[in-house]
Structures are given as C-alpha cells and as structure tokens.
C-alpha cells in the first residue's frame, strides 16, 4: 500500500517535471521550429524529417558534412529532431525508402546527393547515386554493380562441360566486331531503373 502510494507520487512528480521542462521558455519555440529546419537544408525533399536520419547516417560521405555548421546555433541538438518530430520510431522504419538527401558546403548553388533504390536482377544488385546541382545532374555513381562476369563464367563452364563435343551446337561466347546488338541487357535495365528513381527523388 505504501509502496503503491510511493509509486503514484513518483509518477506524478516525474510527469510534472516533464511538463515544467516542456513549458520552460524557449522550448516550445524549438519544438515548433524543428519540423521545418531540415527544409532549407534539403530543398525539394518530399519527406524531410526521415531524411534527417539518413543525413546523419551518411555523414561520412565527403559532401554531407557542410550544412550543419552553417545553420544557426538553435539547431545544435541535432540528435533531437528525429525523436522530436513525433514519428516515435516511425522515422526509423521508413528510413530505407526515404530519399537520401544531403547538401554540399554553401560555396556552390545547392548541390545534393540523391540515391536510387537497390534494383535486383539475375546477376546481382544495382544502385545508382546522382549528384544534383540546381536542376542539373553533375555526377552519376554506381554504388553497387553485380559481379556478373564471375557468375556468367561459372554458368558458361557448366554449359560447356555438359555439351562439349556432343551433338547440337553449344552456345559460344564471342566478342566479335559488331555494329549493334539485338537483345537488351539486364544490368543496364536495372541501372536505368535505379537512376530514374534517383532522378524522380531529386525532383
């Protein structure tokens, strides 16, 4: 009984401490500011709050560290926006699909790095990242490409092992001099998809 009373008192006390902290001068202002602060950092980002988490995760990339010092001191507690935005862990789970948007130092017009999704194909994964300056793509990088040669070597060996010398014609690999090629390639398709998605995210 005594213990229960103590527990209830404790709960009441901690709640009031929280209320006092929240109500303290300035705190409300910060809370109101927070959801908006990422916007100037990541212009055009459709989903700024989760993107903030990504920025932190990708901060090791050379281009990403710039914008923080340039912001006013009110943004100093940079760890708080993700928890303070009320997503309550939701921002965490949404992270992979969120656009990874960062900026370079303010020396140039807004330069952003946007990463496309991982697109799978038979030979592995393809992921493309673009660097956008203003409305122009200034760089395209393949973050991930399949090591298809290793796999297809292996397959060709299997095929050759099974059919060498027997009837019918074994598929041969040629690197003949040709003007063009009939039949699309899986890797280029995945590259295109990831690139297109990155461009869509940048807009």
């Amino acid at each position, binding site marked *: 009984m005594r213990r229960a009373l103590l527990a209830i008192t404790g709960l009441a006390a901690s709640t009031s401490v929280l209320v006092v902290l929240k109500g303290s001068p300035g705190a409300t202002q910060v809370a109101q500011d927070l959801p908006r602060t990422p916007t100037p950092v990541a212009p055009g980002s459709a989903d700024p709050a989760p993107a903030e988490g990504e920025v932190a995760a990708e901060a090791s990339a050379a281009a990403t560290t710039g914008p923080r010092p340039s912001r006013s001191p009110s943004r100093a507690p940079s760890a708080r926006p993700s928890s303070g935005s009320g997503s309550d862990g939701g921002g965490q789970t949404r992270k992979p699909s969120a656009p990874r948007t960062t900026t370079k130092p303010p020396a140039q017009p807004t330069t952003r790095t946007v990463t496309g999704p991982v697109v799978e*194909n*038979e*030979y592995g994964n393809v992921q493309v990242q673009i660097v956008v300056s203003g409305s122009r793509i200034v760089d395209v990088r393949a973050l991930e490409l399949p090591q*298809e*040669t290793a796999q*297809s070597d292996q*397959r*060709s060996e*299997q*095929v*050759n092992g*099974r*059919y060498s010398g027997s009837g*019918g*014609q*074994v*598929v*041969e*690999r*040629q*690197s*003949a*001099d*040709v*003007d*063009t*090629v*009939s*039949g*699309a*390639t*899986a*890797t*280029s*398709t995945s590259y*295109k998809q990831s690139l297109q998605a990155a461009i869509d995210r940048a807009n």
Partner: protein
Amino acid sequence: MTRPGLRRVEQIMGTPISLDLADDLPAERSHELAEDVFGWLREVDARFSTYREDSEVRRFDRGELLLSEASADLRLVLERCADLWGSTDGFFDAYATGGLDPSGYVKGWAAQVASDRLLAAGAGNHCLNAGGDVRVRGLSSSGRPWRVGVRHPWDPHATCLVVTGTDLAVATSGVYERGHHVRDPRRGAPARGLRSVTVVGPDLGVADAYATAAVAMGVAGIGWLDRLPGYRHAVITEDGRCLHSAHLPLGE
C-alpha cells in the same frame, strides 16, 4: 578521322533507342532526319504508352474512345495484333495482362516505320536499334553489310551469334531480361525451355511478336519457328544449345 553520318541515342518508351545514320549527308540534313525519327518515336510513346493515362491506348481501353474515333495508326496496330494473335496460335496476346497492352508489337512497328521513312527520304544506309530490336538497311559507314550481334543469354557483355545483312529486321526475346516474365497465356505460368529466341525477317514488329510468342511456347516453339514463311530464327535452349535456321545469314 571521323566517320561520316550521325549517331544518336535517346531514352524513349522506357528503353534506349539508338540511330546510326551511315549515309554521307550534309550534317544539317542528317540532324533533320534524326529529329524526324526520334520525334516520331516520342509521338508513338505518347500515344501508345500504357503508363500514360492520357494516351490514346489507355483512353481506348477505358472505352472513352471508340474504334471509329481512333487514329489510323491505332486501328492498324489493333488489326496487326489481332492477326498476330491468330498466326501465333494465341501465344502473342495484346490482352495477356487483362487490359489492352500492344507494346509487344508497338516498339518494333514504330522502329520499322521510322526505318521505312528514312529509306523513303533517301537515307538507305542506317541501323535503328530500339531496346534490342534492330532494323538495318544498306551498308554501315565502314562500307560493309551491317553486323548485328545477338546478346549472349548468360553474359550481357558478350554476343553468341552475328547476323549480317543489308535489309534485315532482327528481334530477340529472352527470359534473361526480367527473369521468367514471358508467360504461356494458356497455362498462365512462366514459359520454360527456351532461354532466348532471335527472329530475323523483313518486318521488325512481326519479328518481335514472333520471338515473344516462341519463348512463350517453350520447346514447342522451335518447330513452330521452323514452319514460319519469310522469317528465320536462332534459338538458345535453357540447357545451352543453339539451334538456328539453315539459311540464317550468319557472319564470322
């Protein structure tokens, strides 16, 4: 030393389309012809895309456009798709996904029309490659017949055959592109047995539809291809064998 002619690539209909104009024409004329080709292909994309809700194909499919109101091009495409449904014994099916999707014919047809127009405009030496569907005419800028490689079905960076000619449509359909995406419309299951089918003949839209149909038929497609008048083929089976028509114009 620069080669005569013009080369250009554009991304249209969700695929890279490349034009190699080998005729030694004034630069301005070459650019004009290339603009006609790509302008036509962009127009076809806008009118026939199943991804654009305002395309003529989507409006027709939703019943907002009557057949009598449709453009001559759309009516021609619908007629050809119906013919191909018959000649492929139902294995080429523009309604396979439920709604109308003639893109299996449209890409090859559009490239064929572009090539025909180039020929009529006096540019009889060119190669147009629409996402792996190829139409060649005349000679390449090196002065020899065009050499069209067929993509190796297990190695996207290699070719397994070379077809040469001065007036050819070459279309390849395979299960390597998006896995087993070609469905046997009768069983509703992914087609098995053929890894890739290349069809060579006079018309690119027809060649593409035949290649797709043969992949959907599976092993039975080999016999069917053999009986096609006017079109030759090369087939690569799932177990790595290559079979082709006796008269396929193979290069070195």
